[in-house]
């Protein structure tokens, strides 16, 4: 197992800087997520680590080894692709055995090489060794597919295909597991269960993992640490809790799903409160900030609603009008007008019959300690 270090990594396509001077250290055994929208450079950084792209500048270390100039087949990495990238002409067994055979081809003598090449022409003449067999079946057992070994991957469902890809990536016991949005082609339910499968395997094997995704929920639920990327640079790096609770910028706040981001300024700071002026609203927050021009970030779940005549206990209470309401099962999402501002509000555990109607006048409130302050860039 090993630490992965990217040092001043840069990848330029023409005039486009896909990865811009990226420096990161992923600790041994850590599950590290690169989170960003498409074009943020996260996939390019991962492909450079795998060796599938040659960086324009910078260095990549895996453990003590500088792998910057090594071809992908000499790096101790396993990889899962968004498209699964299973070999459609090989059985599930042969897909998983591929890495072991490649190892024999690289390390073996001429006879071994010939046997590996021959095996791809006729499997019966060149059957798998007992040790290969055992390791492949063991890997397939880890992903609960030991009964599917003789099938063609094209006969399997998307989720099963992805598990084959996982077994194939792990069977050679790589030091680093690279995952390129492996779950984005699966439906939601499978995605959630595959998250757990991958995370549990990673923890039990104590393998270093780098996980590229654009799905904040995926990153927050799986990773030990997250780097949020934008235009080839890391804009914030931290544990899921740090990123969620203290987004460093409006961009990060927006990316992790804080819907209400209001530009304003600090009026005063006294009695442990920071007083903000956001348009026509006065907002009290407990957070402190050095800047004057700020954005106030308030999560939809942090806001409560009440009938106009009901009492409400909160540091910030405003009168508003419901513009729109949608029943989502576990929550109801409302759009509420307060003055000339629009708030997105998630109310937990709604009664299906008792949604507030558009046009209804209501009270909207949130606590001072739920207001996150970020500098306005």
């Amino acid at each position, binding site marked *: 197992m090993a630490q992965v270090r990217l040092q001043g990594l840069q990848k330029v396509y023409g005039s486009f800087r896909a990865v811009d001077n990226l420096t990161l250290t992923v600790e041994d055994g850590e599950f590290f997520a690169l989170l960003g929208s498409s074009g943020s450079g996260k996939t390019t950084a991962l492909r450079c680590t795998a060796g*599938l792209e040659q960086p324009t500048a910078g260095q990549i270390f895996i453990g003590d080894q500088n792998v910057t100039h090594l071809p992908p087949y000499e790096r101790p990495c396993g990889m899962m692709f968004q498209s699964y990238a299973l070999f459609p002409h090989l059985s599930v067994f042969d897909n998983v055995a591929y890495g072991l055979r490649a190892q024999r081809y690289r390390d073996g003598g001429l006879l071994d090489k010939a046997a590996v090449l021959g095996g791809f022409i006729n499997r019966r003449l060149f059957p798998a060794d007992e040790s290969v067999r055992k390791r492949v079946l063991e890997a397939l057992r880890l992903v609960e597919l030991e009964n599917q070994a003789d099938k063609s991957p094209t006969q399997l469902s998307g989720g099963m295909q992805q598990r084959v890809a996982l077994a194939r990536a792990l069977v050679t016991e790589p030091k680093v597991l690279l995952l390129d949005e492996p779950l984005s082609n699966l439906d939601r339910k499978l995605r959630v269960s595959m998250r757990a499968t991958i995370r549990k395997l990673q923890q039990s094997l104590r393998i270093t993992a780098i996980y590229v995704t654009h799905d904040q929920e995926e990153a927050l639920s799986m990773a030990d640490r997250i780097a949020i990327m934008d235009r080839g640079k890391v804009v914030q790096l931290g544990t899921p809790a740090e990123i969620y609770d203290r987004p460093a910028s409006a961009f990060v706040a927006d990316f992790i799903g804080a819907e209400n981001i209001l530009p304003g300024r600090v009026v005063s700071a006294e009695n442990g409160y920071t007083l903000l002026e956001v348009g026509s609203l006065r907002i009290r927050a407990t957070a402190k900030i050095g800047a004057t021009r700020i954005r106030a970030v308030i999560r939809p779940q942090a806001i409560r609603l009440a009938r106009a005549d009901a009492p409400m206990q909160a540091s910030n209470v405003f009168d508003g009008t419901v513009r729109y309401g949608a029943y989502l099962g576990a929550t109801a999402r409302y759009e509420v007008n307060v003055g000339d501002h629009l708030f997105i509000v998630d109310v937990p555990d709604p009664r299906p019959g008792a949604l507030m109607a558009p046009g209804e006048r209501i009270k909207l409130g949130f606590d001072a300690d739920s207001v996150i302050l970020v500098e306005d860039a």
Partner: protein
Amino acid sequence: MTSGIGAWDRVRRAFSFDNVATVAVLLFFALFLILPFLSILIVSLTGQPVAVLDAFLGFDRAVALWETLATTASLKFYIQIFSFGRYFQALINSVVLGIGVSIACILISMPIAYALARTKMPGRTLIGALCIVPLMVPTFISSFAFILMFGKTGWITQIFAMLGIEELIDIHTPLGIAIVQVFFFFPYALLPMVAVFKTMDPSLEEASYLLGARRFFSFLTTTMPLAAPGIWAGGVLVFVVSLEDFGTPMILSPRGFPLLIVEAYREMVGYFNWGGASVIAVLLVMLSGVVLLVQRRTLGTTEFRTIGGKPAKRELIANPRICIGLLVYSAIVLAIPMLAIYTTALQSFATTWGAQLFPEGLTLRNYAYVFERSAGAIVNSFLLGGAALAISVVLSTLIPYLVVRRGRTSLDYLGFLPLALPGTALAIAMILAFNTPPLQLTGTALLVIMAYVVRRVPYALRSTSASIRTISPDIEGASYVLGAPTFLSLWSVTFPLMLPGIIAGAIMVFLTSIREISATILLAPEDWKPMSLVIFEGLIRGEFYTSSAISMLLILVVMIVQYVVFRLLGDKALF
């Protein structure tokens, strides 16, 4: 901590599979494409053979070559063309014939293409399959069949004579050549046209109906302009094929109608006029080169549109009057080449066949004679075609891999360059390039094989590059990350997935090689004559019955192989 790359790694990397493969491919084309072309260019200026390769072997030899060039090079052979009436006439004739045949092919194919792509014409699958058949018959066989049908004693001429129409057509004229070429080359125009008619966005035509256009008017004003790229592509292909067609003019040999392709052959074989032959060869190459270049320019963007588009859902025309009309028309057009094959078959079983509708008697003697006397030619065809197939498999697999996956785009051009090389021109160039040491290959079977490979590799490439583009780069990425070095990845992943394309391309090379005549006649040594050459010589010598028998064997082999490929690969094997 290990740093950077060591010296040994540098050496190893320089001899990586990719680099070695690139050099090998470049070397092949340098030797069998660039060098021959350089040789005819030089000979067309000096008028005498020059040992170009020899000049690379030492400084003094290079100096000697340079001195020969400096003293003898002149443009006099080019000037001769434009002053010597016959060459100039040949140039004009070739161009006019090519343009005429192209236009005729486009016009004749258009209704069939429309019927196949847009209507529920009964039997359109069969019609579609039969449309490939004319391409399988070499033109020296079809021309001979035309003589048997439309010649002075031809059986169709007899039928018309009985109806009171004497002198239906004189087949030994420029018009005769044009007719044979039209009926056997029209599929080249048809196939791309079917493709554009199928993929064109139907909503545009529907819009024109809604605007009140009648169907025919809408066809003229909307469909045609939209289909122009496909039509243009087919027309250009027909022009190039007509330009390099050697069989038809040789068999029909019309008096007073010189063509470039025939003149080049005559200068070479008849008069040993190296300079004249080279000049005509250069002209031929430039002519088809320019046309193909223009086509590539104009087609560069449009080809994508036809391949990448979603298959448009459209209502096929079911109007019985339109469908039956188109069916009758298609049947008439296809009847001519089918009758040509029927006539050849009948001739091959005939004892004697004079000016009658049917032969006097039927026999298997012609075939027995063929197996007795020409079995060697059949074997030769398979050996030469098979060798060409094997080499093309290697080239047509490596080139798309290097171009598409490794960005060596210069190789792409090399692979398509030979399209502009008529067989006669290539053969003349190869003879001139390899008739002196250090590589004296003229008169060996190897040179015949190389000519086949160089000429046909573009067709194989078209098929293999299409198939490599369907493989996701991730799949190869996966094999690298799993630890497979380049060669193992190619062997275990890329090649197996390209296999359908490789097979289709290789079979194409084999099939076109065994019916090739224009390069074969100049290059094949006496003991390596393939079927095509034996048939051709037999026809010239007047051995009509046995030649027909070998022709039928040749056509049979082509059809069986083509059918097998069809069953294996479906539509992709069309071109």
